[in-house]
């Protein structure tokens, strides 16, 4: 019952403390992680946007520079010059020599009718007619043109830049092929991390450069470029399944191409995963520490409480016992006093009768013997009653113990000697087990002997005949322990709370006064000790007297 209360109390303490302590910890952990995640996301997006922006500018500048170069060439040179094969070859050679990173694969001049009139480059394209090509009319109309990647006559992906020249009334076109690999490399520098990708798609989402992962140039990328608004760099997130893709797209200024930076979260966010693991670990460790501490503290608190409660219980039990003793003591004293006077009268009258019986005339009486023995009986019983009342007064009296130098082993020895005969006739063995070097203490020899006499007498009475008594002395924690153990029938559970009460006896009429233990109790209490017992019905009983070691004053 009691244990249940304590267990519940402990669980309550643990539960409450855990909730109060862990909830804010977990919330805090979650909040910090969340904050961190968002900051992290924002940083990634910023970085990607920046990258997309700058990379699209780079490509932009690249294309614009090439276009401008062609523009200058058509301004500076006439169609006649440019349509001359040797001139074009020299020009191409000069350009490539002066600027090795120009990335022009070939150069060609096309006249107004669409005929390729001169050409330098690795493909033999001279003589082809481009009039039907869609770009041809666009150049003629707008003056310059940068193509998407396409296959064309050479059946190989490439990009061309074409500008229109005008010599007098004659319009013509200077066209160059851009080294696709150079563009590829330029874009590739923006492929960040292990999983980062960078590529260009045209307005229909077709790859213009080689993406790093699945996909080929000129294939559809599957993404919709219109998601990315014109002129701004946008970041969009695409979560499919476990991985999240961030896309940052930036439209080129001079061409309707979209430069896309793609990042897989589980890669770039590796740092974040690490952070999350750290956070979870810290929170988990915190929780563990809290749990351990809480359980530990609850354990200590409850144990302490239980101990205090037990102490209190013992104290109040002792108080109740002391109260009971005091009240009963008062009553006993009153009764003893009232009985003493009539007893004294009876005693004296009997004595007087005995005196008279000594006279000759009575001695001659045939019943003299009878009278004698009757009077003797009266005296004997007065004596018995006297012992009882005097015992009662002795018990009730606030006797100040006389302090002698007491050797406990000797007290016990003497007591056993007194009872040795009695024990032997009942075939009871008394075993001694003494501590060899008990200190001499200041205590009351006579009173202690009275206590021992009571205890050993009780043991003998309990056994009746045939049995063993062990009397032991010991020294423990600076206290002297004397125990009297018998293998008698034990004390029935229902009597155990009463045996220290005055007049409580289970012994047949006249055999017991019921005062032995109550007197022993108050004697030992006065001497600063305690007296306790343990009894198992059927097995036996042990009484323990525990006395303080009070050293005698030096004389």
């Amino acid at each position, binding site marked *: 019952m009691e244990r249940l209360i304590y267990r519940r109390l402990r669980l309550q303490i643990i539960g409450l403390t855990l909730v109060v302590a862990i909830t804010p910890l977990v919330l805090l952990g979650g909040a910090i992680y969340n904050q961190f995640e968002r900051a992290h996301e924002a940083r990634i997006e910023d970085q990607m946007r920046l990258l997309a922006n700058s990379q699209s500018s780079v490509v932009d500048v690249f294309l614009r520079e090439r276009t401008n170069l062609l523009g200058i060439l058509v301004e500076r040179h006439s169609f006649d010059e440019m349509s001359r094969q040797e001139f074009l070859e020299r020009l191409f050679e000069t350009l490539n020599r002066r600027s090795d990173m120009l990335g022009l694969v070939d150069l060609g001049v096309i006249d107004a009718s669409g005929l390729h009139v001169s050409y330098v480059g690795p493909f033999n394209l001279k003589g082809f007619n481009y009039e039907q090509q869609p770009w041809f009319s666009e150049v003629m109309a707008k003056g310059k043109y940068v193509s998407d990647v396409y296959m064309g006559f050479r059946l190989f992906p490439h990009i061309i830049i074409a500008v229109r020249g005008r010599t007098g009334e004659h319009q013509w076109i200077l066209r160059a092929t851009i080294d696709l690999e150079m563009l590829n490399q330029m874009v590739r520098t923006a492929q960040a991390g292990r999983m980062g990708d960078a590529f260009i798609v045209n307005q229909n989402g077709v790859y213009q450069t080689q993406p790093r992962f699945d996909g080929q140039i000129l294939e559809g990328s599957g993404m919709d470029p219109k998601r990315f608004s014109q002129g701004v760099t946008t970041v969009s997130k695409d979560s499919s399944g476990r991985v999240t893709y961030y896309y940052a797209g930036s439209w080129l200024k001079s061409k309707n191409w979209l430069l896309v930076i793609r990042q897989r979260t589980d890669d770039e966010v590796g740092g974040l995963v690490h952070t999350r693991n750290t956070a979870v670990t810290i929170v988990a460790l915190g929780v563990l520490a809290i749990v351990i501490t809480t359980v530990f503290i609850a354990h200590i608190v409850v144990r302490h409480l239980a101990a205090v409660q037990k102490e209190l219980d013992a104290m109040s039990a002792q108080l109740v016992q002391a109260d009971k003793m005091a009240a009963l003591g008062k009553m006993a*004293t009153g009764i003893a*006093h*009232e*009985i*003493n*006077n009539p*007893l*004294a*009268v*009876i*005693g*004296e*009258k009997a*004595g*007087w009768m005995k*005196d008279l019986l000594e006279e000759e005339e009575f001695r001659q009486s045939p019943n003299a013997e009878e009278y004698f023995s009757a009077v003797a009986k009266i005296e004997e019983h*007065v*004596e018995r*009653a*006297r012992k009882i009342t*005097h015992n009662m*007064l002795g018990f009730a*009296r*606030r*006797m*100040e113990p006389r302090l002698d130098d007491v050797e406990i082993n000797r007290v016990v020895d003497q007591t056993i000697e007194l009872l040795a005969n009695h024990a032997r006739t009942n075939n009871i063995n008394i075993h001694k087990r003494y501590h060899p070097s008990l200190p001499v203490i200041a205590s009351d020899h006579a009173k202690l002997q009275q206590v021992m006499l009571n205890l050993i007498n009780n043991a003998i009475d309990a056994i009746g005949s045939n049995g063993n008594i062990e009397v032991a002395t010991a020294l423990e924690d600076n206290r002297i322990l004397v125990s009297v153990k018998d293998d008698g029938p034990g004390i029935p559970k229902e009597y155990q709370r009463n045996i220290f009460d005055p007049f409580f006896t289970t012994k047949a009429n006249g055999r017991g006064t019921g005062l032995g233990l109550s007197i022993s109790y108050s004697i030992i209490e006065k001497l600063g000790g305690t007296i306790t017992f343990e009894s198992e019905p059927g097995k036996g009983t042990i009484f323990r007297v525990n006395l303080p070691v009070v050293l005698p004053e030096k004389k």
Partner: protein
Amino acid sequence: MPTYSVLVVDDEIDFMETLVNRLTRRKMEARGVPSGEAALALLNERTFDVILLDIKMPGAMDGMETLREIRQRHPLAQVILLTGHASLETSMEGMRLGAFDYLLKPVKFEDLLEKIGAALGKSQPVLP
């Protein structure tokens, strides 16, 4: 053999008379009175070697009062307190007031005789 005089002061008449009889039978000059006042009155006329005094008695003079008076007027008389009402306080008080000893009723007659003898040994022998 000298005779000693003993006064028994006790309101329990049966006890007082019987004790007087028994002491007389043992060759003592014993007298009994039932109260402190009576004891003091008697003591005005003569003195006793030993006085057995009950403590709790009805009347104006209880045992302690009587003891005080006796000790003042007859410092040589030995007083043995003999009472059914014992407490540490009264016994201490009695001893302090100069009682020779203190006995609790009922007392074994032999013990009483022994105490009287002891008291006599302490007191001046009575005139023959």
